[in-house]
């Protein structure tokens, strides 16, 4: 899909995460969530971050989105400092988040949800926004549900609408925080394919967080495997499976090889996380 004036779509959305650390200090008990983490995400790259639950993956995403600050290091978007130790990023429509449990406004219809960004940002009329939204929804195969409320459509459909709502703003980066976690396996395959199509057509930078290895390899171009808390990068995997991808990838030899590499790295961390958990319990 050609969105407006995006002449060379991969010209923006480059993220540099440089030596980022984050300490949570809720009540005197310092918790180190992320330590000295660095990533270079090229514009238009599908980057997936994998790690055990509670390892601090979401901390990175929240810092990029501007929901909270970092304690050390800096994060740059297209060469501009987004945030550093002294300054939190402000949330903005150039970095749109798709949330773990979904955050379509239940009180708005699908169409009102999808037009929310353009309407509040102003610049185009409500009618133009609606026309644009209808066009985008039908390009994404989501026509016919414009006037339904989120509660009236399936969970898989809701996820797709939320991605459409994000794409309406032509963001530099799409931030996805375990977005398909609550979906059943069948729905997941449909939504995966949907996201891959969106990515192939738009070539947006995608920052995708998950703890599901298969999902990570199937979707991503680069997979960052994080250590258990405090999170830092353990392994970086280049996923050389060509695009466009579909379900056949899942039985290819390169997929299986990558998965094996991945499992070994993650299993070690999962054991550490488990042991750490037992220590805390004792």
């Amino acid at each position: 899909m050609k969105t407006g004036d995006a002449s060379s779509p991969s010209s923006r959305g480059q993220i540099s995460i440089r030596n980022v650390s984050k300490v949570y200090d809720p009540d005197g008990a310092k918790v180190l969530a992320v330590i000295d983490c660095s990533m270079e995400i090229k514009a238009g790259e599908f980057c997936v971050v994998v790690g055990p639950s509670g390892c601090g993956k979401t901390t990175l995403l929240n810092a990029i989105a501007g929901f909270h600050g970092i304690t050390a290091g800096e994060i740059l978007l297209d060469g501009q400092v987004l945030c550093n130790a002294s300054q939190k990023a402000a949330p903005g429509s150039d970095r749109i988040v798709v949330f773990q449990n979904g955050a379509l406004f239940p009180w708005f219809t699908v169409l009102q949800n999808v037009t929310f960004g353009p309407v509040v940002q102003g610049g185009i009329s409500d009618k133009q926004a609606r026309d644009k939204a209808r066009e985008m929804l039908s390009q994404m195969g989501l026509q016919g549900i414009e006037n339904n409320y989120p509660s009236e459509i399936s969970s898989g459909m809701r996820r797709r609408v939320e991605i459409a709502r994000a794409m309406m703003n032509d963001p530099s980066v799409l931030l996805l925080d375990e977005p398909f976690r609550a979906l059943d396996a069948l729905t997941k395959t449909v939504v995966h394919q949907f996201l891959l199509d969106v990515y192939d057509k738009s070539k947006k930078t995608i920052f995708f967080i998950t703890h599901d290895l298969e999902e990570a390899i199937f979707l991503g171009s680069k997979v960052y495997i994080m250590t258990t808390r405090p999170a830092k990068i353990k392994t970086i995997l280049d996923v050389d499976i060509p695009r466009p991808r579909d379900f056949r990838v899942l039985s290819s030899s390169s997929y299986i090889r990558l998965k094996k590499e991945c499992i070994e790295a993650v299993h070690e961390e999962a054991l550490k996380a488990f042991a750490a958990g037992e220590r805390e319990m004792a």
Partner: protein
Amino acid sequence: MTNAASPTANEGNAISSWEITLFSLKQWLKSAAPYLSLLGIMGFVVIWYLTTERLKLPWFKKLPGPMTVFTEWFSQDPAYGISVYSPEYYVHIFKSIWRVVQAFFLATFLGVPIGLFMGWKKTFKDYTFPLLETLRPIPMLAWVPLSILMWPGREASIIFLTFLGSFFATVLNTLLGVESIDEAYFRAASCLGAKPRHIFFKVILPGSLPFIFTGLQISMGFAWFSLVAGEMLAGEYGLGYLIWNSFIMVQYPVIVIAMVTLGVIGWLSSALIRVVGDRLMQWKVREIAR
């Protein structure tokens, strides 16, 4: 906001709100619920009849029975002057309704914005919440002397009492409504470029509507409660006054007529709030209708 009821604009996937109302009404009539409710009410009347007029149990001896009450209520020539045929009956009803309407709307138009603002701005809540929580538990009857001292004339003090009763419930429920909104919606809105006024009107207000309307139903109940207390002490007209005056004048059937009237009107006013709420919250109705 666009109305969802536009069958031409889509593939007929969205149903109109009217159809949903009709459908749920039909479902309700098909179920056992309405008939059981009717049986319940009839059972109560039968027990009332047996204890008062039939068996004449000692501690029910002085109470008017249903036969006496209904004969009086529907009599063309009522013994105590109050029946469906006497204009005075309606004067009392309308006086009470008018007082509740004034007090309830005042409480809603002040209480909802204050509650929303308390939920939105932490500092404002810090200023006001302890005050609210101290004033709220004070029983309405305790306010009677002050409200008589404060306001010129009875009318204003009755309305003030009624207002107080419903105000606190409205503020508190609105505040709870704002606090019930998932943080993710605020984050999503700010991601999508919403400014503070958009957050207020497109997230906080619609997001807290379910709690607001629950609060309004509760506050309507409190309004009637406080109204009757106020009218008993300071009224000249109104159902509360009628109850107290009939007690003093030993016109016992009139007490029950006024009580049942209060019950019916109270129930109708709650139902009205529910209907308005359902119209404003189609998304909630549809969730339930699924």
